[in-house]
């Protein structure tokens, strides 16, 4: 089993500062990251993503717990002894070296023969499509090119794990999309385990094999994007990944009674008080008169181009957002104040016991 685990954190705790004023950046985090997987750490600012990455890289020592690399305890190993490389958010390219020298730096420090350093550097330059820039100083490169040098530099020594701390956040949207595809391609081509940090949920969903959602120093949920999106385990995950509607409800037999008084069907649960969540794209607008429809009144319509967000209030005032695909005519024939019926696809409802 250890064969397939690249990195494992066991009950890792990291506290900064002294006793009473200490900040628990990581609070008992345990996670197993598989070999060759694209693993993303996702969470709001300050939740401890960077801290976890720095612990794996060796820049920080945990206050408690262990970190294992392919089954071996590396908790106290310094960064230069760990076969793990980092792509820094600021790139941190060496300004006194050329692109090629930057890429070859790691191998040179490892004392590899010159021929090998040169061959690998050339291969990496080709991999990130920067052959023409080999002899430039890094200050003469654009942001996207610098990003690629940073990637190539970290990949050159063939690390067991590549750590990427928000590597795309300094790029503009278009370049960012390009680099997302590029990163994914590099990961597939090299087969190296990537641990990627972002606070952009869309980026996480499109790129990852698995996502670890973090909040306040704790891992809330770990799973493939679809599972995280469709079956969030708690309110935090549900609201952090994508938009969603929260509907407080009480169990009533095998159905749930919403606070507006209407009973609907949803997956079973043991708790008496629950929160039902449903994604806006799973909410259907139907005629008010239709059976089982939840009566509601449209409070707002927001046009997004490809779709329109229809905000509607249930009888008790709870707001529900429905995402409707914009029809060819561009006009869905809805108006604020109009009474409509809402219908939820029962399988799309997620029951959170809170």
């Amino acid at each position, binding site marked *: 089993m250890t064969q397939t685990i690249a990195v494992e954190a066991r009950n890792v705790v990291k506290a900064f500062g002294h006793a009473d004023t200490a900040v628990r950046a990581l609070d008992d985090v345990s996670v197993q990251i598989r070999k060759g997987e694209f693993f993303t750490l996702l969470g709001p600012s300050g939740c401890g993503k960077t801290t976890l990455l720095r612990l794996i890289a060796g820049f920080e020592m945990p206050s408690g717990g262990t970190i294992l690399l392919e089954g071996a305890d590396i908790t106290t190993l310094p*960064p230069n002894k760990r076969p793990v490389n980092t792509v820094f958010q600021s790139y941190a390219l*060496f300004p006194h070296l050329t692109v090629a020298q930057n890429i070859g730096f790691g191998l040179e*420090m490892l004392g590899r023969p010159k021929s090998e350093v040169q061959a690998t550097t050339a291969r990496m330059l080709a991999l990130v499509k920067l052959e023409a820039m080999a002899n430039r100083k890094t200050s003469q490169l654009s942001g996207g090119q610098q990003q690629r040098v940073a990637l190539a530099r970290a990949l050159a020594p063939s690390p067991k794990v590549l750590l990427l701390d928000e590597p795309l956040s300094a790029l503009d949207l278009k370049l960012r999309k390009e680099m997302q595809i590029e990163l994914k391609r590099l990961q597939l081509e090299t087969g190296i385990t990537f641990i990627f940090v972002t606070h952009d949920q869309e980026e996480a969903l499109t790129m990852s094999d698995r996502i670890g959602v973090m909040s306040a120093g704790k891992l809330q949920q770990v799973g493939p994007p679809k599972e995280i999106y469709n079956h969030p385990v708690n309110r935090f995950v549900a609201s952090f990944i994508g938009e969603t509607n929260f509907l407080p409800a009480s169990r009533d037999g095998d159905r749930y009674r919403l606070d507006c008084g209407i009973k609907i069907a949803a997956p079973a649960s043991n708790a008496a008080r629950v929160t039902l969540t449903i994604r806006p794209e799973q909410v259907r607008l139907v005629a008010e008169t239709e059976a089982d429809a939840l009566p509601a009144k449209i409070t707002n319509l927001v046009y997004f181009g490809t779709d329109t967000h229809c905000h509607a209030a249930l009888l008790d005032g709870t707001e529900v957002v429905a995402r409707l695909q914009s029809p060819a005519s561009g006009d869905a024939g809805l108006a604020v104040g109009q009474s409509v019926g809402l219908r939820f696809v029962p399988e799309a409802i997620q029951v959170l016991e809170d």
Partner: protein
Amino acid sequence: MSPAEQAQITQSTRNGWLLSAPALVLLTIAAVGPLAIVVAYSFMPQGDFNGVAWGFSLEAWQGILFTKDVFDGTLAWADANLTIFWRSVKLSMLTTVFTFVVGFPTSWFIATRAPKARALWLFLITIPFWTNLLIRTFAINEIIRKEGLLNTILLKLHIISKPLEMIYTDTAVFIGMTYVYLPLMVLPLFASLDRFDMRLLEAAYDLYASPFQVLRKVIVPIVKPGIIAGSILVFVPSLGAYVTPRLLGGGKNMMIGNFIELQFGQGRNWPLGASLSVTLLFIVTGALLVYVRHANRETTHGQ
């Protein structure tokens, strides 16, 4: 380019020159004038009592390396002069190296403090500049002389049984110059280190560099301009140092500066003083050229 544009450029270039003319004239007179006089003196015969006499003579230049026997006029190597040159160069180099060895960790320490503390430390570094060099040198004298502070303490603590003979030795001059010129090394080094991106340390450390390799392959090459500036700022005045060797080296451990002064003063040999001054200028220029060349080669090497 149209003729009108061309004319405009010519015009503005001319205006630029005209505007800077007063400064250029002043600089030329101030920099070239005295130097020209010194060079001219070095090619003149010695005056009867003082100064120089009219005429042309190479005696002063000969006097740098050779002494003429008073009786038979044969030339012999001027060992004393060579010793003074060698001592000057040696002590200046030692001072430069040592101020770097001490100054680098000091500047590193300051550069890695919080911004507020940094200002305070820099301020402390500049405090010695508040007092006159002469007074500071006397203070060192007071510390290292035979009955001085250091010897007294060491004797009282029974670490030594008889006073250390430090004053009026090369070591004393070296200690004094290191003390005096240390800030000149620290300040440019700090300026470089202050701009140094500390995140590069983690990047290098992450890429398998040992702490020593981080220093050697990343920090030193990047802060090299500061190292060069600091070394020049220390080496050049060290070579021409006058006060420190005079007060701490006594009459015997002269450096070029004292030797030159001797020629213009008691020695009453102005031409020799002038030729020595020009020689000092050549040594400094030569040393700087070699040093800067070498330093630059190091940076570009391996590309």
